[in-house]
């Protein structure tokens, strides 16, 4: 099987990127008339400046396509941060190893306690997040967390430092079924500049993570770029190409794409203003992804402000987090009634923009005539009765 890193190197992303700037509005109209983007060329046209003028029509088609495949529902999940220990230097990340933040790795009991707290809020889908550290996030720690959380959370995913396929298997066997690995930036020179030290500097190895994870048995794969590090149109084309590759080679996996934009974080990284992506461009991108990839899950986190999140509920997003803390142990300090942190969170990865509680977000979704879906996976699909009893 050809790995995406090899395929990507041969793709004319730069040419598509240039094409976005030359797209005419009649080309965009033609694609809207078809109702879908058939290839990366069509997709490039939909993310072009020319397509900005057609955003309302784009949104209408995106909404209809999303409803047909996913219905009038938004799936909800919560991230839980296990550890902010990290050996990587990523210039934009709050967990970057040189940042003077309090370093925390949660004991398993605290993870379970926080998971219970999240379950009481309604969550039945959890994303386990941690920095990359061979000493703290290793030796069966993640597997233990997965096993202990399973009776509380029927659906578990991970977002950790990449591993080799054999190292993923015990995590899958423990009952984990989702994996997220963001490339951050697909632009190789930018990647090199922003990741000067640590295992994350290996661009190709990171890019192949979803394929290694699929080989280990993960059934949900999440990819994405962190918008703000390089030109968003280039990144969008790369993500789209990556998703299309995964559709062919990892055909049993549900492919999810996240669309995170840079948020302020410890370290004070200043993104190049030229790479900033506007709200309008983000909406355009979500809709363009939908027209190219009608079946892809599109994920929106609490990085985005409430008004924008509310607006995107109907336009193509399928999955949202809510009431998130990005600090290990952060939920331990949340008031269970108001779901607000009782103290500052100096160990957070980044500061969220939508601070509403899970219930407030669920109410917002309902108010738009959509159902917030908390549970969409049952552990019995992947675990035998004996495994469940052992848990």
């Amino acid at each position: 099987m050809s790995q995406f890193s090899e395929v990507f190197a041969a793709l004319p992303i730069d040419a598509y990127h240039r094409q976005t700037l030359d797209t005419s509005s009649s080309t965009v109209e033609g694609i809207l008339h078809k109702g879908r983007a058939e290839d990366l060329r069509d997709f490039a046209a939909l993310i072009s400046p020319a397509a900005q003028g057609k955003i309302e029509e784009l949104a209408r088609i995106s909404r209809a396509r999303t409803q047909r495949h996913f219905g009038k529902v938004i799936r909800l999940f919560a991230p839980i941060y296990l550890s902010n220990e990290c050996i990587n230097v990523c210039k934009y990340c709050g967990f970057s190893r040189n940042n003077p933040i309090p370093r925390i790795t949660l004991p398993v009991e605290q993870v379970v306690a926080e998971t219970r707290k999240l379950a009481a809020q309604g969550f039945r889908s959890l994303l386990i997040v941690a920095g990359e550290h061979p000493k703290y996030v290793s030796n069966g720690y993640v597997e233990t967390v997965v096993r202990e959380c399973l009776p509380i959370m029927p659906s578990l995913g991970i977002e950790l430092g990449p591993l080799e396929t054999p190292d993923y298997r015990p995590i899958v066997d423990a009952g984990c079924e989702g994996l997220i690995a963001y490339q951050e930036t697909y632009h190789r020179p930018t990647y090199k500049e922003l990741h000067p030290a640590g295992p994350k500097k290996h661009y190709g190895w990171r890019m192949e993570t979803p394929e290694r994870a699929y080989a280990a048995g993960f059934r949900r794969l999440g990819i994405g770029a962190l918008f703000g590090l390089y030109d968003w149109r280039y990144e969008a084309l790369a993500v789209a190409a990556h998703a299309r590759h995964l559709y062919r080679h990892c055909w049993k996996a549900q492919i999810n794409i996240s669309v995170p934009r840079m948020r302020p974080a410890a370290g004070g990284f200043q993104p190049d203003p030229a790479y900033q992506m506007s709200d309008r461009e983000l909406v355009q991108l979500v809709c363009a992804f939908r027209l190219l990839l009608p079946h892809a899950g599109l994920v929106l986190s609490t990085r985005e402000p409430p008004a924008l999140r509310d607006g995107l509920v109907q336009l193509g997003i399928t999955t949202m987090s809510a009431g998130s803390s990005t600090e290990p142990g952060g939920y331990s300090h949340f008031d269970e009634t108001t779901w607000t942190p009782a103290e500052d969170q100096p160990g957070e990865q980044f500061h969220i923009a939508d601070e509403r509680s899970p219930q407030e977000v669920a109410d917002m979704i309902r108010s738009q005539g959509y159902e917030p879906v908390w549970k969409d996976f049952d552990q019995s699909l992947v675990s035998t009765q004996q495994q469940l009893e052992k848990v």
Partner: protein
Amino acid sequence: MRNRGRSNSRKRGLPLAAILSIESQFPHHSNKSADGATQPPGFTNRWNRRRVIVLIKLKTTMQNPLECTPLQIGDRVFRSRLLVGTGKFASNETMRDAVAASGTEMVTVALKRADLGIESDPFADILDYLDFDRYLVLPNTAGALNAEEAVRIARLGEAAGLPKWVKLEIHPDPNYLLPDPIETLKAAEILVREGFTVLPYINSDPVLALRLQDVGCATVMPLGSPIGSNRGLETRAQIAIIIEQARVPVIVDAGLGAPSHAAAAMELGADAVLVNTAIAIASAPSRMARSFAVAVEAGRAAFEIGLDHGQNKAEATSPLTTFLD
């Protein structure tokens, strides 16, 4: 184990007068039927014994004015030939109302969405919105990637007190949700052997349909077009062969986007159809559900009466058989 209310106090085929008399005992439960309307507090967790009462007007239309023959699947008889799926709705209340409006007697629920534990889970309570006295709740195995997973989740549903019926769907491809024929056949063999009434979702493959009948499936459920596509009977010719060869009811499942699609399937001789997306994402799901119900009745009645399919009559300029005169 919770009692899922498997008893059916309303027998199939009760006369209208009897139904009206039963339901007139609950006049205040008719409540709201508008899409998205909510029920009073306290309703949601009582699904195991609570019957959903609908408007009198609806009861009369639920009767089969066209007097079609009832549908028998396994040991059960159904007056309605419309099955309804419960996913993709804007709310559970909307789903409940649309299901009621459809007049269906069989609804399918993805077990992955439900909580099958001892206690009702307010965050996974889709089953609370279904009246087990009124509908046969048909658990489905959506989410299963292979036979092993499908069998496991079917057993779990039964253990949780759901009917020992299963809509077997195994679609490892999460995009078009097309069913895996090999795994479906494997799982069907196991589940039939274990005493389940098995209704397999399949691609419109006549040989697979026969193989599934050979192993003892209660129906076959070929797709009209991919789930959620609303493209109608794109597999019409294959479905016609399946119907021609069938020894069990044929239920056309998936892709029916308009009442005319459902009517066409019934006119073709399908025994029933299953509709979900087209109802769930309609701007008025209950009305759309009724529209499908009417179309299904019309199509079935026309099939039973016998349609004149017309002829493309061509006259040869020089008759070919004059030598016989």
